């Protein structure tokens, strides 16, 4: 149970850190920030990789989870990069 207290602490601290870091974002970057953050949420891929695979159902679930998280990661980063490349100063 102690481990949950510790990880819960990490969770709260990270959310607070995120709120502090991002509180002032110029509106130009709203879309790239959203899309870049979206790519980061593809971190679920790490969780999907370590799922137990002791049955064919479990294997199928793990495969799909990795697949969809991978689409999220690759698509998210590339589209963010494409968008950011368009922004330029005069």
């Amino acid at each position: 149970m102690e481990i949950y207290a510790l990880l819960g602490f990490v969770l709260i601290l990270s959310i607070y850190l995120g709120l502090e870091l991002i509180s002032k974002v110029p509106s130009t970057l709203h879309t790239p920030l959203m899309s870049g953050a979206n790519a980061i949420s593809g971190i679920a891929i790490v969780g999907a990789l370590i799922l137990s695979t002791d049955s064919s159902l479990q294997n199928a679930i793990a495969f799909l989870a990795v697949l969809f998280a991978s689409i999220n990661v690759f698509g998210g980063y590339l589209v963010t990069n494409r968008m950011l490349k368009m922004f330029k100063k005069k």
Partner: protein
Amino acid sequence: MSFLSDLTAIQNIVYIIASILFISGIKMLGREDTAVKGNFLSSFAMLIAVLVTIVDVVNPLFLISAIAIGAIIGSTIALRVKMTSIPEMVALFNGFGGLATFLIAWSEYNSLPDNYFQHLLIMITIFIGGVTFTGSIIAYGKLSEKLTIAKTSIVTKIFTTIFYCSIIFLLFSLAQPFLTIPHINFFTVLLVLTLLGGIGFVLPIGGGDMPVVISLLNSLSGIAAAFAGLLLLNNVLIVAGSLVGASGLILTIIMAKAMNRSINNILFVGYASASKSSVAEEQGEVSPINVSDAYLILESASSVVIIPGYGMAVAQAQHVVRELGELLEENGTEVKYGIHPVAGRMPGHMNVLLAEANVPYDVLAEPEDINPIMDSVDVAVVIGANDVVNPSATEEPGSPIYGMPIIEVHNAKTVFVLKRSMSSGFAGVQNPLFFKQNTRMLFGDAKESIGGLVSEFKD
């Protein structure tokens, strides 16, 4: 054995490094000069986190092939998509992230939770991940205009009811281990109800409220990943997921503030049908103008502000708008763009479109920068925007949009409103701007009208 514990130690160190890179990455993503580098850093963090995980999985080839297929699909979509379709693309990717966490929690349930806390985490992750998944798919459908179901239709009402049922069933599922009930397969019911509930969560929300919903779904996908991290006892999932949750939450709040509405009001109430109030009746004559007269006024203007809205996106007029801006500048006119935070269908939608058309971002101004100098502006050109320039928001306390911060174009010397017809905006509120003394209506397709102005300038 010592090899295994070494590997676990290395994994943990790499996870910490990845977490730090994610934190700096997202921080840099919030600043114009470092954004590209920030995105790169966070993708590098993702790469090392995946690499250090995959060396220790049961059947690496099987999972690597899943990554490869995902990489091909994701990259193809990302590189091919048109910039005008970015909102729905972000929604779609977001949904896939939600689906991945939904599947993680499902899989963990099958390998049997050993304590009640795990049971709680599984149920919550299933719910957030599932709602994010189907909610995002509906958002995708609405944004790409493949899905048009009215808020008042019976289908919407049925799904909305299912959404509320799914919340109640979630509460039941949380308590399930303590209840002695007849044998129903409650977990399957939860899976199905959650997925249907996600549809009901987004279906009733209108197009103009999409910037809020899409930010909220973004936040939820992060929270779901963080909960999956708690479930799997994995630090990097918790940190990265929380960062996404926080950034999505900030955007949600910014969007809601820009509409002067509470998140609760946007999600569960929608605009009141106050458009039939007495103020709406009091209208007047609109003064139309044609392209050549508009050209003469623009030609002699010394400062022009362009205010784009969703209509510019629909008409795909961003490129001709940029051309007009450049011609005006060559003519000695000072040109600025007034960008309202909720113009369009996602946070920053107008910025992306104008950037695509090569408009430099330093001529884009936010309402608080442009409003104080509006009196000195000769011409404000409103292109397909409506609610965000509606003076009722500042002048009529009874209006449903009263209090919403707007771009005060009515203070400019002359206002051109480019519009297809006299229909009201998303909020369903009549816009008194159209009837003001200094307003001229330029009816027609925005792309054609601007194109006409451009060719007048060239002649």
